[in-house]
């Protein structure tokens, strides 16, 4: 073994790398990106969750136990709003503008104190705070329940005598008995379709460029828009099939809850696949070989995986990082698919997400067409 010859190889490898900026970026930037996102996103607790308090307690404000409990609610976690009408409050949760309703019964303070003085005839429901939550997102529902319980414990302890206050969170507005898997599967399906479609289009289009088939097509009567539309149809179909298989496995293997219209969920995923296809074509112009195309993968997959609400909700992502979530098409797809499967929402309620996806799709497809029309 001769050191100088081995050294020549080392030099060759390093020189090669010096000329390949894309790989250099991958070596240094990608891990930094991953570390930052993981670090920031994982430590983030749920913040700013909108809940509505309906306080029917008729005690005098000065001695009201309910007001004390409300003032002890952690305002970092909960963004507390008030309403006098339980029906209105529940409607707000149903349309997605709040996550939970906290209801105090009408003789709350009085009943709790009566019970503490030894009156056993007090009805239990009068000492119970009802928590009506949207449990479709377990990672939001659990912190709400925890925050309410904490406020109750803090308040009763500060009263100096034994008080019994119950919190009943068993009635869910959405997602009764939802488990992590019920919430996770719809999210992971969206991200899987996003990742696979972007990658497949990217590789397929880099192939069209390097094999010369794209030249033949662009010199034929085929229009650039027809090429993009043809790809979109193909990948829309593949995405739908893929999500159907994944969802079927979810139901058969994990018995996941689906309360909404599955066809609507497939429609959303097909739309996401078309968005991904547009992105794949756009990225293909930046790569000359298949090997270079693969290097885009972490940049496509990781942010979508970590920041679009698949594992933990957008509410748990630090405010300054949320804009990144909102420019990710997957955020809207995850939200829409989950709303359909767990909340049973229809198009009338998920349309904002669908509109967002339609905007992404049109922008990406138009850009991809314009890119293919370039002739310089």
């Amino acid at each position: 073994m001769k050191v100088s010859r081995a050294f020549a190889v080392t030099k060759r490898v390093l020189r090669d790398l010096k000329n390949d900026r894309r790989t250099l970026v991958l070596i240094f930037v990608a891990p930094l990106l991953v570390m930052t996102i993981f670090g920031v996103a994982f430590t983030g607790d749920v913040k700013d969750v909108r809940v509505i308090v309906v306080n029917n307690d008729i005690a005098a404000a000065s001695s009201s136990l309910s007001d004390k409990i409300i003032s002890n609610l952690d305002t970092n976690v909960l963004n507390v709003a008030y309403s006098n009408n339980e029906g209105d409050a529940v409607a707000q949760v149903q349309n997605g503008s709040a996550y939970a309703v906290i209801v105090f019964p009408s003789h709350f303070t009085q009943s709790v104190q009566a019970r503490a003085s030894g009156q056993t005839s007090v009805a239990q429901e009068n000492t119970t705070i009802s928590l009506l939550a949207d449990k479709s997102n377990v990672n939001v529902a659990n912190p709400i329940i925890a925050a309410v319980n904490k406020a109750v414990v803090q308040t009763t302890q500060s009263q100096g005598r034994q008080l019994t206050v119950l919190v009943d969170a068993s009635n869910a507005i959405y997602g009764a008995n939802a488990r992590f898997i019920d919430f996770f599967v719809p999210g992971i399906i969206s991200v899987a379709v996003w990742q696979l479609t972007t990658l497949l289009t990217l590789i397929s289009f880099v192939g069209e460029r390097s094999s010369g088939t794209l030249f033949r097509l662009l010199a034929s009567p085929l229009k650039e828009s027809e090429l993009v539309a043809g790809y979109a149809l193909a990948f829309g179909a593949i995405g739908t099939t893929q999500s159907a298989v994944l969802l079927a496995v979810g139901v058969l293997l994990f018995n996941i809850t689906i309360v909404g219209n599955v066809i609507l969920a497939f429609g959303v995923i097909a739309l996401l696949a078309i968005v991904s296809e547009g992105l794949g074509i756009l990225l293909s112009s930046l790569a000359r070989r298949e090997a270079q195309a693969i290097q885009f993968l972490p940049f496509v997959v990781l942010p979508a995986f970590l920041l679009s609400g698949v594992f933990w909700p957008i509410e748990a992502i630090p405010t300054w990082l949320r804009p990144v979530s909102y420019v990710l098409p997957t955020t809207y797809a995850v939200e829409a698919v989950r709303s359909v499967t767990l909340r049973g929402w229809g198009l009338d309620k998920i349309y904002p997400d669908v509109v967002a996806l339609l905007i992404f799709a049109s922008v990406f497809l138009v850009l991809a067409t314009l890119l293919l029309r370039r002739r310089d």
Partner: protein
Amino acid sequence: MRLREALRVRQASAIIDEKGLVQAAVSMKDDVCIRDLEKDFGGFKAVNKLSLRVKHGEIYGLLGPNGAGKTTVIRMLCGLLRPSSGEACVLNVKLPDPGVASQVGYMPQELALYLGLTVHENLAFYGEVFGLSKRQIDAREQELLRLVDLEASRDTLIDQLSGGMQHRISLACTLLHEPQLLFLDEPTVGVDPDLRASFWRYFEGLRDAGITILVTTHYMDEARHCDRIGFMREGRLIAEGAPRELLELTHTDSLEDAFLAYSRTEGPQ
């Protein structure tokens, strides 16, 4: 010295020819006419003031070393690149024109086939892109596979064919929609001598059937099959004529030597 004078005379007569041609342009059919065509890639002039005409029913060979600008010319004629200046007409239509594509057959330098599809699937796809009906595709497929002698390989994946077979299928894809004009970009690169000879037989056969062919190559010797050739160097046309004519004018025995003779008289740019 004598050579240089001879060339000068030749160039002068070419200018007269050019003027005569302009007047005769209406009556005489040129399938390709290029005037002062230029392509600038960010400061690098790949094609520099190029003018040439390809007559109807001839094989015109564009010859020159790698990097002379031949492929850039072909790509501009196929609408894949926009010229920086100058103009080009194809089949009497001024480019760019979306309608002309259906009458032109383009064979790129690359194989331009889908390796994961069978021969038939490739032909059918390109046929559909050109708007042929299923019946037309089947009829043309039979005819072309017979021409390139690959009838038995109809259902074979392109991946599993030899390099030479793949080249023949690439040619078949180019001819599928019965184009009147062919742009063949280095069709014989990486092709063995036997197949190269049969390719030129195909080209001559197509020409005899009335199809006009503009073909580029850097194999000088095979250009003897062309009716006329143009020598390209550094983006410019340095000589043009029938092969025999160019040999006589340069007093050389091979087109390679003829090219070198013209290269020398041109001098470095």
